[in-house]
């Protein structure tokens, strides 16, 4: 991989995103709307649950609103980044193929898009993290924020994988909706999985580690090393699969 090529492609991808002003505004408006809805519909009524990744025997009791705030922050970052990643991977497929013909390597193109995605994940994660303390004070703010970013990392990589598999946008969107709604939008909420009969399914989904990272940090002082490493491993595995499929799809045909 040539760093200069990655840098140029990253700059061009960032320039394109900068010019999509309405989409950029929505990236900041959507989490705010999510938080506003939680504020409107939740109360400070105490709720009790156990977190899947720690071995505490006793239940954790927190305000319903606080729990919902962490959950919805994760969902906002994860869903937004997966759609952005899908868009970055699918858009300009023909021009990108022309760039490959002209001398770019597919790995350089995909890595530059991923780095552009990382920049957006950092911005959105920081923004969501910055507005979170307005509504509640987590026990450990930094790791909660890191959990949001890991949700962006894992779901960004998932969005790239879906974009590498499907050529058309609609199929990609539906595939993201399918998993994101089930996983980060529902099953990773401790209120749901607390009494679930088959927790192994929930633990194998992409948002498990990032949501544990944020939830454990927000409400306990337990170690978050395992969910952090798990998030990194899950995201990297998805990214590697995306890179492989994207390279196969963009490869040039040589001899018969």
């Amino acid at each position, binding site marked *: 991989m040539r760093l*200069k*090529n990655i*840098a*140029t*492609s990253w*700059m*061009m991808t960032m*320039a*394109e995103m900068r*010019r*999509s002003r309405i989409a950029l505004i929505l990236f900041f408006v959507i989490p705010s709307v999510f938080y506003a809805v939680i504020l409107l519909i939740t109360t400070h009524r105490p709720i009790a649950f156990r977190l899947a990744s720690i071995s505490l025997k006793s239940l954790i009791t927190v305000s319903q609103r606080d729990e919902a705030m962490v959950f919805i922050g994760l969902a906002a970052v994860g869903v937004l980044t997966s759609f952005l990643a899908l868009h970055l991977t699918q858009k*300009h497929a*023909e*021009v990108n*193929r*022309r*760039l490959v*013909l*002209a*001398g*770019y390597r597919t790995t350089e193109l995909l890595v530059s898009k991923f780095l552009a995605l990382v920049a957006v994940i950092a911005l959105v994660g920081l923004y969501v993290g910055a507005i979170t303390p307005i509504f509640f004070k987590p026990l450990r703010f930094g790791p909660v924020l890191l959990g949001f970013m890991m949700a962006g990392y894992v779901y960004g990589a998932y969005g790239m994988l879906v974009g590498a598999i499907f050529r058309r946008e609609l199929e990609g969107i539906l595939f993201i909706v399918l998993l994101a709604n089930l996983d980060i939008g529902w099953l990773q909420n401790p209120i749901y999985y607390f009494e679930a009969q088959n927790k192994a399914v929930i633990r194998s989904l992409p948002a498990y580690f990032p949501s544990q990272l944020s939830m454990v940090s927000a409400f306990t002082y337990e170690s978050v090393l395992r969910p952090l490493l798990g998030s990194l491993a899950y995201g990297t595995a998805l990214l590697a699969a995306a890179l492989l499929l994207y390279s196969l799809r963009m490869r*040039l*045909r*040589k*001899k*018969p």
Partner: protein
Amino acid sequence: MSLPSVALGAEALLEVRGVRKSFGRRRVLRDVSFDVAPGRIVGITGENGSGKTTLLRIVVGLLAPDEGVVRGSARSGYCPQDLAVFETLTVRENFAYFATAYGLGGAGSGKGPRPWTRTMDELCARFRFADYRESLVSTLSGGTRQKLNFCLSILHDPGLLILDEPYAGLDWETYLRFWEFAEERRALGKSAVIVSHFVYDRSRFDAVLELREGVLRCA
């Protein structure tokens, strides 16, 4: 851009031998062979759906033939029929992106003009869209986008140009400039394969081949 390469015979910049291609039961190319020598402009014509674009996509490496060999020796430039440019980038940014791909230096943050910027300026002036260098492609007319589409394929001064319907959408003045440019290149020993559903000005070509029923014939 690298063509599928095998050891070449003397002279030819491009050799296509026995290429066959089917999509399902539909046999698009049955047995296509042709050569392009240095300093030649070869036209390939045929009815809509005759397989011209399929042939070009095989020649540049975008599509694999079922059988046959494509051998190339020169660095080539490919201009696809459909616009393949970044619409939310400016004209200059498109040139910078492709300059990086061709290994000409690219955007970078260094001071002073890059070597490719001079070529870009010359091409923009020659094909009369210099005023739009800083404009977003999405704001340009169809004809100007087509000029950019074409110029991106010649930024690196390739020995062999492979053009799919290159003058669709161009005005008459630009069409004439295109041929002036092609003839200058021919005088320097550079070649072109031009695919078009009709060949308007046959005398400008060194050879015109017609693709009919999956086979190339002299037209």
